[in-house]
């Protein structure tokens, strides 16, 4: 489970938004050159105009408050995904933001729940995109990794689920870590598909008790309850969900910047839930996930690395060295027996501190990559 921003970015990618450019502070001269300008007025009736059209490409949305106290924000949505928004436009104020949109129909909302006062924006025509061969390659490389792992996820989840359905606790425990690895490598992409991630990977308290299912529900049954009673439907649903993920990934549109963001997101996962022992709180196999997150992050970085090697060769080198340092920090905890690492409970504070520091060091550098890639794309 994850925080919102990168998920929104990835969701945007999945839904066909080509580049998410959030223009700062209402200055129209910051909108991309050649932007189409659309003005929306907030009134008591909602957003005006109710129907707007624009050619595919960069659009600068100007939002003015036409004297209403009823509405003070404007959102552009694709389905239920907010692509861009401006808030706090109260009486007398105005503001703007920019988006680059592909052909399609979008909702224009001035109220979070939608419905009342909602408008539509129809974008027509083909978006001119020119991607360099390096970018194409980066995306293709990452896509094959993604598909490899969702395939593997299905392949490893099936025997695990079979063991759960058969009520074989020992076998299910044995197989659990293997199924976790491919998921943890690509989790940020899974998170882009609405509630699919919580259905597969929610931890207790992340969701309503009645909705708690997926890997961690079964983990709890195996290690805490030590009973698989009632787990058959949960397990079968897990299979359906990982298969759905495998299908959905095939249609996902990827951007180089978002792949780089995904690399960071995986490290955030390590910092917030693996190094704290929260992810696998019953089985304590957190270091298995830790390594899978780092591997996924490494592959994402390596996919885009050629794009920054030109922009900032020093940065690329430093990240490579920091990645090696992370693996070196993990190495002493690897074991030859199940699950391949010592359990989280066996780590001392000094151990987790060392591991956390190695991630922080890597992540600080890796966070600089997306902007470098964006610069490269514009160049």
């Amino acid at each position, binding site marked *: 489970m994850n925080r919102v921003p990168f998920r929104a970015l990835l969701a945007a990618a999945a839904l066909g938004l080509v580049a998410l*450019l*959030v223009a*700062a*502070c*209402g*200055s129209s001269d910051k909108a991309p050159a050649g932007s189409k300008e659309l003005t929306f007025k907030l009134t008591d009736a909602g957003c005006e105009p109710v129907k707007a059209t624009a050619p595919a490409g960069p659009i600068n949305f100007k939002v003015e408050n036409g004297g209403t106290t009823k509405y003070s924000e404007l959102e552009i949505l694709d389905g239920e995904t907010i692509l861009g928004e*401006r808030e*706090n*436009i109260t009486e*007398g*104020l*105005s*503001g703007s933001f920019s988006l680059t949109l592909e052909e399609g129909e979008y909702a224009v909302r001035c109220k979070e729940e939608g419905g009342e006062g909602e408008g539509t924006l129809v974008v027509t025509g083909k978006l001119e995109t020119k991607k360099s061969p390096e970018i194409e390659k980066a995306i293709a490389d990452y896509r094959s990794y993604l598909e490899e792992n969702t395939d593997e996820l299905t392949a490893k989840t099936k025997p695990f689920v079979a063991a759960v359905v058969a009520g074989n606790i020992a076998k299910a425990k044995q197989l659990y870590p293997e199924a976790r690895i491919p998921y943890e490598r690509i989790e940020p992409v899974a998170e882009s598909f609405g509630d699919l991630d919580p259905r597969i990977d929610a931890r207790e308290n992340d969701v309503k008790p009645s909705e708690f299912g997926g890997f961690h529900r079964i983990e709890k049954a195996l290690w805490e309850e030590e009973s698989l009673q009632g787990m058959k439907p949960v397990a079968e649903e897990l299979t359906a969900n990982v298969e759905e993920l495998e299908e959905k990934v095939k249609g996902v549109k990827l951007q180089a*910047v978002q792949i780089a963001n995904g690399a960071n997101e995986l490290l955030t996962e390590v910092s917030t839930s693996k190094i704290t022992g929260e992810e696998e709180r019953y089985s304590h196999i957190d270091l298995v996930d830790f390594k899978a997150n780092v591997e996924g992050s490494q592959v994402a970085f390596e996919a885009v690395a050629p794009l920054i090697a030109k922009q900032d060769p020093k940065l690329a080198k*430093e990240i490579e060295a*920091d990645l090696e340092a992370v693996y070196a920090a993990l190495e002493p905890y690897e074991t030859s027996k199940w699950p391949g690492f010592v359990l989280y409970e066996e780590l001392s504070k000094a151990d987790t501190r060392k591991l956390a*520091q190695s991630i*922080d*060091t890597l992540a*600080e*550098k890796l*966070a*600089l990559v*997306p*902007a*470098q890639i*964006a610069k490269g794309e514009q160049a």
Partner: protein
Amino acid sequence: MALTRRRLLASAGIGAAGVGLGAGGYLVGHDAAEADAAEAGGAVPFYGEHQAGIATPVQDRLHFAAFDLETESKAELRELMREWTTAAAEMTAGRMVGTAAGNREQLAPPDDTGEAFGLPPSNLTITFGFGPGLFDRPGLGLADRRPAELQPLPTLPGDQLNGLESDGDICVQACADDPQVVFHAVRNLARIGRGTVTMRWSQLGFGRTSSTIRSQETPRNLFGMKDGTANIKAEDGEAMDEFVWVDSGPAWMRGGSYLVSRRIRMNLEVWDRSPLQDQEETIGRSKYSGAPLGSEDEFDPLPLEETGMDGKPVIPADAHARLASPQENGGVQILRRGYSFTDGVDESLGELEAGLFFIAFQRDPGKQFVALQRRLGVHDALNEYIKHVGSALFAVPGGVKPGGYAGEALLG
């Protein structure tokens, strides 16, 4: 481009009124920005003969951090000190760390963490020091530059030190009149240093417990006693030269000083239930006026020779003020610059985890702090109420020249 934190805020404010959005104003470079920092008041010059934060009038807040060096490369250490110096000069002038572009790039984390945005310089000083351990690292090749004075502090009477709250290879002392400004300083330096150093321990101080210039009122420590009445005052150039500034040994330490820090846990609950008379006799001063017992005024000399009607000394033999006084220590003095701290609740006791983060500057820690503490640790009546749980020693090099970096004479 130089932008003060305040100017940034002002431009954001204009943006909110004029354009209609408070998302932050653009960074606009103006020559006036430098002047603005001075206007905002409280910018202490970073560059000078000595590092700031020693003779500087004590500010109200402290964030102190000790770092472990994670590299054996002198070049990397040098690069760190260069980057830290640049950032320190920016922050002490009230500017953001990094570049305007680096703080506005939408797809990257901003260079500066931002929490001091809009705050004036607040008399921020950032003082760097090097621990003894640095000179034992063969890779760094600093052994021949080690000053004789820079030896790990010996175990002192009453020490109950926790290793994780002690020592360190490099220290950063950030002092200012605003807690957010000192926190921002340490946080940003830690971030810049990631990969080269890791933070070993850090300490926030919420109130000064000494004065270093005559015009400053003597503050009270958490025992409710005036502390630092007899401290060296910066105006006393002779005392500063005699006791604080280094003028011998390796060239890189000239104009520098040695910093001793001690995390002193105070048993406040026990102190608070002690009779007033015990409290005053423990210190040797009157609680409210701060005057020596048997005297009227805070700054009266300690009547160390006087005895009362009962034939006992007016200032008891084990009183803290007596044992710490120059008269009883062969004239030795130190410059104290400590802060009160509290870090929540002592888990094992359910009592306030609070005390004094003692900082002292001196030219020779062995002859000054160590000599003083050897006596105090054994005889001081105050020992019943305190324990020393953290300890560190750092060599604080002389001042930084514009264009140079802290520690350049050592690492260059």
